[in-house]
C-alpha cells in the first residue's frame, strides 16, 4: 500500500469510524441504563436522514436551522418510542423488551418505505460540508475532516456531563442499580428519557455527518450502520462511552483497511465486523474498557 | 486430617476455604465438617459469608484458596491465580497447588443438593414438573431415544419416583398447581422436595425457615427431622431462626466477617461470648 492510499484510507476510516462512534454512544448509553439493545436506533438514525431531506427540500431551511430542527424531531421520535414501546415492558423479561425493539425497527423501516417510497432520496448539500478539500494527494469532502473533530468534542462534553454533573451522577446510579436509585429519590423515567434525548440527538448529528459524503437515504440505510455500531459498542465495552468511541474507530478503520489490504475480500467487509465482534466476545466478553459484573446467586 | 468424631463418616469437609471478591474477603480460611447423619447449623449475622460457603461447596464459583472434600474425595480445590496472586489476603496461602473445579451440575450428580435463600423454583411450571425435572440427573438414555419414546420404562420410573416423593412430602394435592401460585411456606417445602428428587446424601438448606411464623417453622423442624431419617441425609443448614437452629442442629458453626468465630453444640454456642458480641455488637 503506497503512502497516498494509506493516508486516504486513514482519512476514510477515521471519518467513518467517528460517525459510527456517535451512533454507538447512543447504543451504549441506552444499554448501560436499560440493559436493552435498542435495535431501533439504526432506524432512528435513518429517519434523521429523511428529516434532514424534508427540512431542506420542503421547507428550505438554512443548514444551521436544519441541524437544530433535525435534532429536535429525532429526539421527539426517540423519546416517543421509549415511552410507547419500551416503558410499558420495563418490568417484563429482557427478551420481550428486546423483541419490542426489533418490532419498532421493523415498523420504522416499513413506515419509511410507505411514506417515502422505497426510492433512494438525495441527501441535500448542507452549507460547505460537501465541498471537496485536498491535502496533498488525499482528497475528501470537508465533512470527512470535520466528523472526527465533532466526535471528539462531543465525547468530552459527554464525559463531563456523566462524571461531573448531577444528571450524570443520577445516570450512573440508575445504571448500577435501578431500585436503589429509585429509593434514593432519582426519577428513573426522567433519567431514561434524558438518555434517549442524548442518544437520539447524537444519532441526528451523526446522520448529518454520515449522509453528507454518502448522500443517499433509503429505508434500509440505517440497518447495517445500526448493527455495526452496536458491535462497536460491544467492542469498546458496552455501557462505556469512551469505549463506544474507540469501538467505532476500530470498526471504521478495520472495514476500510480490509478492503485496502485485501481487495479480493471486499465482499466480506460487513461480515468482518461480526468476526471482530465474535473474536472479542470470546477473548474479552466485557469489551476493551468494560467492567466485569459479578452475578448474584 | 483431624477427624475428631471417631468412627462416623465425614461427609463434607471444607478445609481452609477462602473466597475473595476483588478486595472483599467473603470467606476467610473456613474449616467445617459435616458427619454422616448430622444436622449442622451455619449461623452468623448478615453478610457473614454463609451463602458464599454454600456457593463454594456447590460449585457456583471456585474458592480463591482451599479445598472441599466430599466423602474424603476432593470435590473442589483451588489456589490464588492471575490477579488474585497479588490481591489475595487470606490465610494459608501456598498450601494448595491444584485447581479442580466442578460445575454445579457435576456436584449435584455426586449427590449434593441445595435450596436457595430466595426460593428459586421453576416458577411457571407445576409442582409435579419441578420435582420431575430434578429426576433428569438419573436420565441415562440419550436425547434421540428419549424423544422417540424408546425409554418408556425409564420415563415411567422417573414419573413414579416423582409421584412417590410428592406423596411422602404431602404435596399431592398441589401437584398440578403452578409453583409461583402457592404460598411462601409451601414453596419452601417444594424446593426441598425438588432437592430431594436428585437423590442427595448431603443436603444444603439456605434459610429454610425464612419468612415463616413460629407454627410453620415448628412444622418445618419436624419435616427436616423426618426427611433426614427417611432419606438417610446429612444436612448443613443456614438459618436465622434461633428456635429452629437450637431445636434441631446437633452442632453449630458461627461465622462473622467470613471468619469462623465459634463451633460447638447449641448449648455451647448459646453461651459463647464471641457469638453474643457478633450478634449484639460490643459495648465499648
Amino acid at each position, binding site marked *: 500500500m503506497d503512502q497516498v492510499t494509506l493516508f486516504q484510507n486513514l482519512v476514510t476510516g477515521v471519518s467513518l469510524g467517528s460517525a459510527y462512534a456517535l451512533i454507538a454512544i447512543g447504543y451504549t448509553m441506552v444499554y448501560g441504563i436499560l440493559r436493552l439493545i435498542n435495535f431501533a436506533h439504526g432506524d432512528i438514525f435513518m429517519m434523521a436522514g429523511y428529516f434532514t431531506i424534508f427540512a431542506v427540500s420542503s421547507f428550505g431551511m438554512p443548514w444551521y436551522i436544519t441541524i437544530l430542527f433535525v435534532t429536535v424531531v429525532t429526539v421527539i421520535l426517540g423519546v416517543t418510542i421509549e415511552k410507547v414501546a419500551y416503558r410499558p415492558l420495563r418490568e417484563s423479561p429482557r427478551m420481550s423488551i428486546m423483541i419490542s425493539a426489533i418490532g419498532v425497527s421493523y415498523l420504522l423501516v416499513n413506515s419509511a418505505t410507505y411514506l417515502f417510497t422505497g426510492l433512494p432520496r438525495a441527501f441535500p448539500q448542507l452549507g460547505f460540508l460537501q465541498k471537496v478539500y485536498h491535502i496533498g494527494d488525499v482528497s475528501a469532502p470537508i465533512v470527512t475532516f470535520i466528523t472526527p473533530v465533532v466526535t471528539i468534542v462531543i465525547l468530552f462534553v459527554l464525559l463531563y456531563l456523566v462524571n461531573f454533573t448531577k444528571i450524570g451522577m443520577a445516570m450512573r446510579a440508575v445504571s448500577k442499580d435501578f431500585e436503589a436509585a429509585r429509593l434514593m429519590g432519582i426519577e428513573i423515567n426522567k433519567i431514561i428519557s434524558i438518555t434517549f434525548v442524548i442518544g437520539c440527538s447524537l444519532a441526528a448529528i451523526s446522520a448529518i455527518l454520515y449522509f453528507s459524503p454518502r448522500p443517499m437515504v433509503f429505508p434500509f440505510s440505517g440497518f447495517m450502520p445500526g448493527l455495526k455500531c452496536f458491535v462497536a459498542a460491544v467492542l469498546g465495552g458496552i455501557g462505556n462511552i469512551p469505549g463506544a468511541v474507540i469501538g467505532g474507530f476500530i470498526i471504521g478503520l478495520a472495514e476500510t483497511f480490509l478492503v485496502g489490504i485485501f481487495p479480493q475480500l471486499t465482499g466480506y467487509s460487513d461480515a468482518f465486523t461480526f468476526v471482530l465482534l*465474535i473474536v472479542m466476545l470470546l477473548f474479552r466478553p466485557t469489551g476493551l474498557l468494560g467492567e466485569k459484573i459479578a452475578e448474584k446467586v | 486430617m483431624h477427624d475428631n468424631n471417631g468412627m462416623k463418616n465425614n461427609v463434607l469437609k471444607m478445609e481452609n476455604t477462602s473466597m475473595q471478591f476483588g478486595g472483599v474477603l467473603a470467606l476467610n480460611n473456613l474449616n467445617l465438617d459435616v458427619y454422616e447423619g448430622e444436622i449442622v447449623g451455619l449461623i452468623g449475622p448478615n453478610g457473614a459469608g454463609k451463602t458464599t460457603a454454600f456457593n463454594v461447596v456447590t460449585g457456583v464459583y471456585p474458592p480463591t484458596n482451599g479445598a472441599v472434600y466430599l466423602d474424603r474425595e476432593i470435590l473442589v480445590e483451588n489456589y490464588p491465580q492471575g490477579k488474585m496472586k497479588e490481591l489475595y489476603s487470606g490465610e494459608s496461602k501456598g498450601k494448595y497447588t491444584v485447581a479442580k473445579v466442578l460445575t454445579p451440575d457435576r456436584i449435584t450428580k455426586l449427590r449434593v443438593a441445595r435450596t436457595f435463600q430466595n426460593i428459586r423454583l421453576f416458577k411457571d411450571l407445576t409442582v409435579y414438573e419441578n420435582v420431575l425435572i430434578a429426576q433428569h440427573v438419573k436420565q441415562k438414555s440419550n436425547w434421540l431415544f428419549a424423544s422417540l419414546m424408546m425409554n418408556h420404562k425409564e420415563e415411567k420410573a422417573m414419573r413414579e419416583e416423582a409421584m412417590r416423593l410428592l406423596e411422602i412430602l404431602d404435596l399431592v394435592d398441589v401437584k398440578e398447581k403452578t409453583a409461583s401460585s402457592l404460598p411462601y411456606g409451601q414453596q419452601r417445602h417444594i424446593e426441598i422436595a425438588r432437592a430431594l428428587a436428585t437423590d442427595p446424601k448431603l443436603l444444603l438448606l439456605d434459610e429454610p425457615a425464612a419468612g415463616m411464623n413460629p407454627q410453620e417453622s415448628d412444622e418445618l423442624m419436624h419435616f427436616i427431622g423426618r426427611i433426614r431419617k427417611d432419606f438417610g441425609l446429612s444436612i448443613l443448614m443456614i438459618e436465622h431462626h434461633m428456635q429452629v437452629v437450637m431445636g434441631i442442629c446437633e452442632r453449630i458453626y458461627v461465622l462473622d466477617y467470613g471468619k469462623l468465630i465459634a463451633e460447638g453444640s447449641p448449648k455451647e454456642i448459646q453461651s459463647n461470648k464471641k457469638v453474643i458480641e457478633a450478634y449484639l455488637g460490643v459495648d465499648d
Partner: protein
Amino acid sequence: MAFEYKRLNKTTKIILTLLLIAGCIVLTYMLDKGIIGTSYTVRIVRISVIYALIGVSMNLVNGFTGVFSLGQAGFMAIGAYTVGVLTIPLASRPNVYYLVPISEKIQDLVMPFGVALIIGGIFAAIFAALIGTPVLRLKSDYLAIATLGFSEIVRAIIANNQMWPITNGSLGLKSIPTFPSLFIPVIISTVGIAFMVLLIKSSYGRAFKAIREDEVAAEAMGINLFKHKGLSFIISAFFAGVGGGLLAAHLTAIDSNQFKIMVTYELLLIIVLGGLGSVTGTVLSSFMICSGKELLRWFDLPHSIGTWKIPIFRPGLRMVIFSLLLMTVVLFWRRGLMGRKEFSWDGIYNFLRRWPWRVRRLIRGDYSKKQEEVTPNA
C-alpha cells in the same frame, strides 16, 4: 355460580384427534388436487407449513430453552444451499452456473430430495455445533448479537467469489426441483414438528424448560447448562436447515439476499405472536402471518370512493399495518396467541363452554367476580 372446568373422556379425545388428522389429510388432498383453492392458496399453505417448521425450531431455542438466538436465517441458508446444490438436475447445471462452471467435485453429484434435505439439516447442525461452543457461553443479549453476526457471516461466505463454483455466488441458484405434491412439505414439516414436540415432552425438554425458568436452579438440579443448551441449539439448527431446504424447493430459485437478518426478525415475530414457548401458537401464527401478509395485499392497491382516490392506499401500507399489528401484540398482548399453553381438546371444550357461561353472567348483570372463572392448571 362458578365456572366448572370439565374434562372430556379419553375415547372422545381419540376420536376427535383421528377426525382432525383425517380432516387435515382430506384438506391437503383437496388443495393438492385443486378441488378447493387455487395455486395461490396452495403456495400460501406451503410457505406457512415451512415457516411453521422453522418457527417451531426457533421457538425450541428461544421459547423453550430461553436462549435468545437470532441465527436462524444463517442455518436456513445452509440448508437451502445444500438442497439447491445437490438437487439441481444435471441438465440444468450448465445453465445455472453460466458464468463460473460448477466445481468438478460436485458437478455430477445429484441426490434425491429427501437425502439432500437431511444433509442440509446435518450441515446446519454441524455449523451450529461449531459456533455453539463459543457462543453458548455468552449471556443473553451478547448471544443474540453473536448469533446474528454468524448468520451474516454465512451469507457473506455464500455470496463471495471464493465460493462461486459451489454456490454460484451472486447469481444464486435456480431450477431447483419443486415439490411434486403438497403432501411432501406438509408431511416433512409435521414429522419435524412432531419430533420437536416429543423432545419437549421428554426429560430433556423438561430440562430445557428448567434452564429457561432459572439457570442457576437448573444447574443445581444437576442439569448441565452447556450440554443442554447446545443440544437445543443444534437440534434447532438442524430443523432450520431442513426448513431452509424446503424453502429452496418451494422457491426454486434462491440467492444469499433471501437469508438476511430480516428473515430472522420475521420468524421472531411469528413465534412472539404465537407465544414464546408454545408449539401450537407458532404453527397457528405461522399460518396467520403468512396468509395475513397476502390478505393485506388489498391495502397496497389503489382504491377510490367514487372518483376520489383515497390517498392512503399505496404500496407499502400493507407492511405498515402488519408491523403495527405486531407491535400491538408485543405491547398489549404480551403472551401472544397461546402464551405457553398448548393445544388440547379439553382446552377447546372449555373455551367453547365458557363463552355461553360468560354471556349468561353478563345477562344476569353480574360482572363483578372475575375470580369465579376457576381454571385448574392443566
